[in-house]
């Protein structure tokens, strides 16, 4: 029984699955490719369950607040009520589909659009205060931002036909070259750290009793 509790068993599971998936990329052999699809499908199923656990742990968090009658506890009660109502409407089959779509379209969608509009606002005050030519680097950032901005804001096209081609040239060559360099370095850095995870050397993953939801 103790072998099942041993942490090294987890590292072995991670190692075997990762190595087979990587091997299936290089060796063209049907069983390896089927294993990759099967393992990915299993990973997808488990990820589905983690979303469930996330919803339940959020509900537990809010129920505790209601029980302890903390400030605004009625909002927490409303949270849990709306969570369960919406969930049972969602899985209720055809009968409740119309009510589910009503809440989805008239409440969920409108709040979503409003929050994304709100997010855009916060940038405005920053454009005035932070967009300043303090040094060469900030200067390059601002000049490049304005050129690309004018490339996309089509009103520039009516000002002078040169802006769009210049912007497209800036995007197609210098920007692409810079992103290629950054992309190559991030890839190596991320793979080096993923290697440590696969080889079980990443102490950061030593399981502290963490909440598995996020």
């Amino acid at each position, binding site marked *: 029984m103790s072998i099942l509790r041993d942490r090294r068993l987890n590292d072995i599971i991670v190692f075997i699955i990762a190595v087979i998936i*990587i091997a299936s*990329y*290089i*060796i*063209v052999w049907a069983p390896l490719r089927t294993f990759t699809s099967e393992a990915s499908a299993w990973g997808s199923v488990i990820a589905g369950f*983690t979303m469930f656990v996330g919803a339940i*742990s959020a509900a537990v968090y809010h129920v505790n607040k209601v029980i302890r009658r903390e400030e605004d506890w009625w909002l927490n009660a409303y949270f849990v009520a709306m969570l369960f109502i919406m969930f049972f409407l969602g899985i209720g089959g055809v009968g409740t589909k119309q009510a589910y779509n009503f809440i989805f379209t008239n409440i969920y969608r409108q709040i979503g659009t409003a*929050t994304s509009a*709100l*997010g855009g606002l*916060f*940038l405005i*005050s*920053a454009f005035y*205060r*932070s*967009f*300043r030519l303090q040094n060469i*680097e*900030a200067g390059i*950032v*601002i000049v490049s*931002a304005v050129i690309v901005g004018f490339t996309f804001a089509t009103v520039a096209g009516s000002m002078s036909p040169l802006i769009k081609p210049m912007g497209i040239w800036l995007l197609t060559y210098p920007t692409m070259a810079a*992103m290629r360099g*950054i992309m*190559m*370095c*991030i890839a*190596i*850095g*991320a*793979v*080096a*750290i*993923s*290697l*440590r*995870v696969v080889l079980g*050397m*990443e102490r*950061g993953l030593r399981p*502290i*009793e*963490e*909440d*598995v*939801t*996020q």
Partner: protein
Amino acid sequence: MIEKISVLVMLVVLVVSYAYFIQKGKGPNPAQIRRIPALDAVDEAVARAVEMERPVLCIPGWGRILDLEMFPESMAGISTLNYVARLTARYGAELISTIRFPAMLPYAEDTVEQAYIAEGKRDEFKRSEMVRYITSDQVPYYTHVMGLVARERPAASIMIGYFSGGVMQICEPGRSVGSLQIGGCASNVAILPYFIITCDYVLMSEEVYAAGAYLTKDPEMMAGTVCGDVNKLIAIILLLIGTLFAYVRNDLLFELLRM
């Protein structure tokens, strides 16, 4: 039948160089990471907080732990938080760190507690004061931190880890309260411009992965950071030679890599 051989070669080179630098790390002179100015400024930032008797705000990013894209940066954020906590314990500055995802909370609390124990200041460690879980929803999270920055007026804010939208709403008030800001983000490069125009020091993408190793001087993490250099040097050589070949209309290397 084998395909994508160049991918296999690059992976083998990375694993071999990783093993080499781990062995070198155990030897007399382990590999050292070059100076990263933004990380040297962390000491200066905490010293400034002690002098001005204002708190240090350290945000280890708001990425998930279990998401492989964000995992490396979240780990770098936790290591940075550990280093900052050791400094605040040693010099007695007030530490505040805000957490977005519940999965990150145990790592953050654990790392700050261990820092204070290592500095012999276990009694000064105040869990709920120093490591604050806000909420996992993004807009309310950064709205709360915006208010916190305006109220606590931190002398230094150190933001290294995975970040996404809402960074401006934290760096902008930070600048206006005169806090020395160090920002860094790796895979989400779309966030770096906001750090560049608001922070005093910026860690550029892959430097964030090196933050953990650079600050903790842990030989294994150093090996993980430095081993990538071999692949990068190979890439530079291939790019230079390949371009020369292209100018003389010879596509030998081009076909070789596509095998």
